[in-house]
């Protein structure tokens, strides 16, 4: 059942550019990039219960790293570029994760929020490197001598990377590390009593989350083709949190769905101009009221109700 669903999803993803208009190929790439960020954020917030409002900052670090690598060394294969973006961002995650160990709840949210602003300021002030407010054009990346210059090429790159990262995330939950992270979410004291090294796993969650977001940042740079500090404002971080809350905290499919929903929503509401933030907010409130566990748990309930003939309650929504 699960495997069939995965296979079907993969086929649909691969066939997408042939079945849909060009613009939706771009939009799907953007959705997948956001899905990777959402999964990364979910590893931190959904699995380990560490709330972050600074993931736009991580995305920016990954994006600028990838952009600078492709600009300086145009012949570097895209895999190396993305790996560089992931490593640099992971390192930044480590540097942020260690001092943030002592912080919880709102205080952690504040610290990560500040991190987002610091990154944007740093991009503006390091203009010899990042071209500051003027923005940076990102040339097409290369893979085995071919330039990934079309929306379709970039889409397939995004699909491949996203598939790998989704599989990895699905499996993390089943490993020792994943169980330890989940234990930290349920109760830090209980987890510690069962022999989970709290500091190490919290830091690991930060690094993993940053790693995912760094890869997404690299893809973001290639898909969008232009970076500026204006790209990574605090509202983007809030969008990421909205994705995992709407999709379902602690759920990988939920992250993907949440990212798709928020990305599509953002895009289709652009035509409402001044009313966009208002409508967006209303939809978020409504989905919180009617789907408190996110899309993932609502779907699960629906499936269970269909299979057993009567509704059952899903797992309780995680608390902050």
């Amino acid at each position, binding site marked *: 059942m699960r495997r069939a669903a995965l296979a079907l999803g993969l086929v649909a993803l691969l066939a997408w550019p042939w079945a849909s208009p060009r613009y939706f190929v771009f939009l799907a790439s953007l959705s997948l990039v956001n899905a990777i960020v959402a999964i990364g954020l979910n590893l931190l917030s959904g699995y380990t219960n560490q709330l972050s409002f600074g993931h736009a900052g991580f995305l920016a670090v990954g994006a600028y790293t990838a952009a600078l690598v492709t600009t300086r060394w145009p012949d570097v294969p895209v895999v190396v570029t993305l790996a560089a973006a992931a490593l640099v961002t992971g390192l930044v995650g480590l540097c942020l994760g260690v001092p943030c160990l002592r912080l919880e709840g709102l205080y952690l949210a504040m610290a990560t929020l500040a991190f987002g602003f610091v990154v944007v300021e740093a991009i*503006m002030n390091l*203009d010899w490197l990042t071209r*500051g407010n003027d923005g940076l*054009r990102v040339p097409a990346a290369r893979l085995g001598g071919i330039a990934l210059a079309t929306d379709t090429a970039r889409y397939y790159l995004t699909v491949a990377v996203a598939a790998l990262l989704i599989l990895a995330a699905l499996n993390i939950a089943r490993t020792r590390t994943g169980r330890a992270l989940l234990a930290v979410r349920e109760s830090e004291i209980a987890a510690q009593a069962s022999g989970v090294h709290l500091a190490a796993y919290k830091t690991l969650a930060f690094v993993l989350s940053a790693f995912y977001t760094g890869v997404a940042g690299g893809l973001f740079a290639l898909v*969008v083709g232009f970076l500026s500090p204006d790209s990574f404002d605090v509202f983007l971080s809030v969008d990421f949190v909205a994705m995992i809350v709407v999709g379902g905290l602690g759920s990988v499919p939920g992250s993907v769905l949440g990212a798709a929903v928020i990305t599509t929503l953002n895009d289709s509401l*652009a035509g409402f101009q001044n009313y966009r933030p208002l409508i967006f907010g209303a939809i978020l409130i409504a989905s919180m009221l009617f789907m408190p566990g996110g899309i993932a748990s609502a779907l699960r309930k629906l499936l269970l109700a269909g299979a057993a003939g009567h509704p059952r309650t899903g797992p309780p929504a995680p608390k902050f």
Partner: protein
Amino acid sequence: MTIRIALWLVLALVWAAFPASGQQPGVTDKEILIGGSNSFSGPLAFTGEQITKFGVDLYFKVINDAGGIHGRTIRTIYYDDGYRPQDAVANTKKLVEQDKIFAVIIPQGSPPVVATLDYLEENKVPLLFPYQSSPVTRSKRYVFQGMTLSDRSSKMMIDYLAGPRKLKKFAALYQDDEYGKSFLTAFEKDLGRFNLKLVAAESVKRGVTDVSAQIAKLQAAKPEVTFLVLVPGPAAQALRERQKIGWTDTLMVSTGPLTDERYLALAGDAAEGVEGLSLWPDPLLSDLAGAKLYREHMQKHFPKNEPNRYSLAGYFAGMLFAEGAKRAGRNLTRESLVAALESIKGWETGILPPLTISADHETQKQGFWVRVEKGRFKPLTDWLKSE
């Protein structure tokens, strides 16, 4: 059954992706569709709404009421990008690939516009009158620049101040980005022609509100003229700071914030006596025929919206597009529009001096000198040229 439905769906999608060939995007028998990504939220939301809904659309209402252009009415679509480049890219792709617009009109801000520049040029979609002043948009086949580019503004300012006004010591307070630096480079070059140099230049990072240190350093250099190359917030701050420390023996000359009186309110009476280059005639008081018509149309369609330079700029962009489409004739294509716009020579608009579009594709190359007196601009010169 399910498979059959799926097949039909796929077919429908493929069909939708490839429209009938030979047809010009955005042009039908009855309609011309154009649009753009703009700021309806974020830092430039006010400007964005004024140039589009109360500017471009105002003129198109007038044209459509009079029967349109060669039997076609004009319709516009705008999407909000909130000044974020990636949203501008997404919106622009959507406009070109989904909505199939004929041309992009008056998108705003350097980062969003630059982010879409290559894409539009590759796809041969006309980018009409972008509302930003960085010279990167100059001399591109499918781009017609709107706002006066920064190097031209600089030339007019220096020629006037170092020429007829005979001023010699210049300093600048500039925003540390493309906008500020493009002016700074141009100032240095233009002063060089008069064998002059900037005696001091201080930078301000974007988003900074305290500029007291910079003002103190500039005062120490004793310039006769101090250029403010800033955005409204910090510029107002600089003016108030100068008033506070009683620095009166310098002439403050502003580039950006002087585009509309509305922003003078930010500085209050500290703005009195500031001079600068105005790109548009006074939207409230000008006696020019075109400006009067603009006020009439605004009164008729949006009586509650006070005339301002932003909506006037949008109105003018609408006018210019309509003129191009008229000249292109019934057979309107992107190529024929480019050719038609290039054919505009000495055209009377009633708002700006006679307009000639040459190979550089710039539509606005002049301004006139103004001074702030009692909260409004008082014109001091006729139109200055930058050729």
